[in-house]
């Protein structure tokens, strides 16, 4: 994949990014306020649930895992492509990732924050959450480290910490640039945030090395995190969950959904901030090509699951998949297949993957499809497992919809605040590309 030729000067890059940090117009704050209102709705729903009880959600026997867990997996998945772009493509020295790296990493950090809230929301008695921490106590009770839920607690906490550190360390040179171009209180704030970065050779020298190790450690981490998330399901003896394909299947799905979210965020960002010169159509086209690839892996996984159910000869496994495809939630299954595997194939046509409305439209459909994938997997299997008299249906309640709305608003709220107040393009990396310096050298 060719790197977009950048015939820009350092001043151009600084000017473009610093212009985005000027005072925001009233309509920006109106948008922020609207998102804050959405967060308030979600927060109130959660508070209501804490006071009344977990029963205000639709989760009940046999479907004890509903939208809270669906949204958890959805947001963790979104996070993954940010790390793919910042760490894995850094190791592959794919220069086209430079213009979108910062925004994608930001997406990762905020998506993990949002995801991390859902296990709390899902807890009936959230004030007992410290039971998950290995803290010494009188009764000598410890968490069960054999449980995949404990793996998950550790993996997600590690992922959040690592993503934040990776994002922040990478941002130091850009924070210094903002510091040096500002005055007054803003300068003071950025002096603290940039930790005294001067761009001296000693700093760059160790920064480059540390960044390489960051990328090398974040790469196995990101693969392990969604594998661990998948084991929350795969380690349970539930038809449709208990398979070895789950880890790679989830990782591919996570990156698929995350890349779609990157395009969903980049299209308005480049338009509003006039980043078209940096986040070029070539960059978006490369993401679209990667989406074809991840879409095909996901399609292969869907096919393999059905094949394994048939080939196993296990009547319960076969019934689970028959019901998944044609039963009560059959429509969701077909939404998932269409949006995640068939629609992205349109990116094979150059005319489509270079058209902004098509890119945005298809990526929105992939986002929707991936949400439904989690619904089909999580709800579909427990609603219809071994014992017919225990079968049942599940539908989210208004409280759950409220929390879900709150989570989307929280994500966009954080993202919108970030891009207007912090450098949303990796300036130093773009400058490095502009000098012809290879990425990651």
């Amino acid at each position, binding site marked *: 994949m060719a790197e977009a030729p950048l015939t820009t000067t*350092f*001043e151009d890059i*600084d000017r473009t990014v610093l212009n985005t940090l000027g005072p925001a117009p009233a309509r920006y704050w109106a948008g922020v306020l609207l998102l804050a209102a959405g967060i308030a709705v979600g927060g109130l729903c959660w508070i209501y649930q804490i006071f009344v009880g977990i029963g205000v959600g639709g989760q009940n026997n046999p479907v004890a895992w509903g939208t809270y867990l669906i949204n958890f997996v959805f947001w963790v998945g979104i996070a993954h492509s940010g790390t793919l772009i910042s760490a894995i493509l850094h190791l592959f020295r794919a220069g086209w990732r430079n213009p979108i790296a910062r925004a994608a990493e930001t997406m990762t950090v905020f998506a993990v924050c949002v995801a991390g809230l859902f296990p709390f929301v899902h807890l009936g008695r959230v004030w007992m959450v410290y039971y998950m921490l*290995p803290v010494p106590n009188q009764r*000598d009770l*410890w*968490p*069960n*480290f*054999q449980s995949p839920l*404990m*793996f998950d607690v*550790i*993996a997600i*906490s*590690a992922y959040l*910490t*690592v993503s934040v*550190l*990776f994002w922040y*360390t990478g941002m*130091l*040179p850009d924070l*210094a*640039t903002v*510091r*040096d*171009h500002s005055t007054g209180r803003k300068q003071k704030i950025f*002096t*603290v945030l940039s*930790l*005294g*970065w*001067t*761009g*001296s*050779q*000693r*700093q*760059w*020298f*160790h*920064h*480059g*090395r*540390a960044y390489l*190790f*960051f990328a090398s*450690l*974040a790469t*196995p*981490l990101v693969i*392990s995190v969604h594998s*661990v998330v998948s084991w929350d399901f795969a380690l349970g003896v539930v038809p449709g969950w208990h398979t070895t394909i789950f880890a790679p299947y989830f990782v591919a799905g996570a990156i698929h959904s995350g890349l779609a979210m990157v395009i969903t965020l980049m299209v308005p960002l480049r338009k509003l901030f006039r980043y078209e010169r940096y986040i070029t159509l070539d960059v978006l086209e490369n993401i679209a090509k990667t989406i074809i690839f991840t879409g095909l892996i996901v399609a292969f996984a869907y096919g393999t699951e059905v094949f394994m159910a048939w080939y196993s000869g296990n009547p319960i496994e076969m019934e689970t998949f028959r019901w998944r495809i044609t039963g009560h939630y059959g429509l969701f299954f077909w939404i998932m297949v269409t949006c995640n595997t068939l629609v992205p194939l349109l990116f094979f046509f150059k005319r489509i993957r270079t058209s902004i409305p098509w890119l945005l439209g298809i990526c929105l459909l992939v986002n929707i499809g991936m949400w439904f994938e989690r619904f089909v997997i999580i709800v579909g299997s427990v609603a219809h497992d071994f014992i017919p008299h225990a079968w049942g249906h599940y539908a989210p309640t208004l409280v759950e919809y409220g929390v879900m709305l709150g989570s989307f608003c929280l994500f966009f709220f954080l993202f919108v605040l970030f891009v207007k107040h912090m450098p949303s393009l990796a300036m*130093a990396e773009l*400058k*490095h590309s502009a*000098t012809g*310096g290879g990425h990651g*050298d």
Partner: protein
Amino acid sequence: MGTKKIVLGLFDSEEKTVSAIRALKYSPWKVEDVFSPVPGNGLAEALGMGKSRVGYFTLAGGILGFLTGFFLAAWTAGQWNIIISGKPVISLIPFFIVGFELTILFGVGANVLGFLIFAGLPRLKLPDYYDPRCSGAFFGVAASCGEEDQERLTSFLKKRGADIRIMD
């Protein structure tokens, strides 16, 4: 020699900066620091920097993380000594996963620590001879000399294309 003076030469390209550093090496003056808006391989080479030792921190952190994760899980499991889900009390595979996650977490933590220590960060006061243009488009070479030599050093840097700032 009188009081030490620092002259900061600002260059608009990496090539000019590298040639100035090389030339300074064969001069009586000393390069105090070199600032740049982008990482430069040429600069590190010209300054004769070897290999960063941040990696030792990362490695130590990773090893410590693995041991912490694995033995935390094993030790806590040993407290009650109960067989759960038919798995042995000390289950190697699940505990390996805990160890793995903490390898990465501690490795990254130590990596950041190593970077901060080696890079001399954080600090709130920038060196007096730092010029804010160095985080924008310019490369800065700070060289020191005695007071009497200041003009010679200034013209030396100017000849190589620099814009000049002088600091005490």
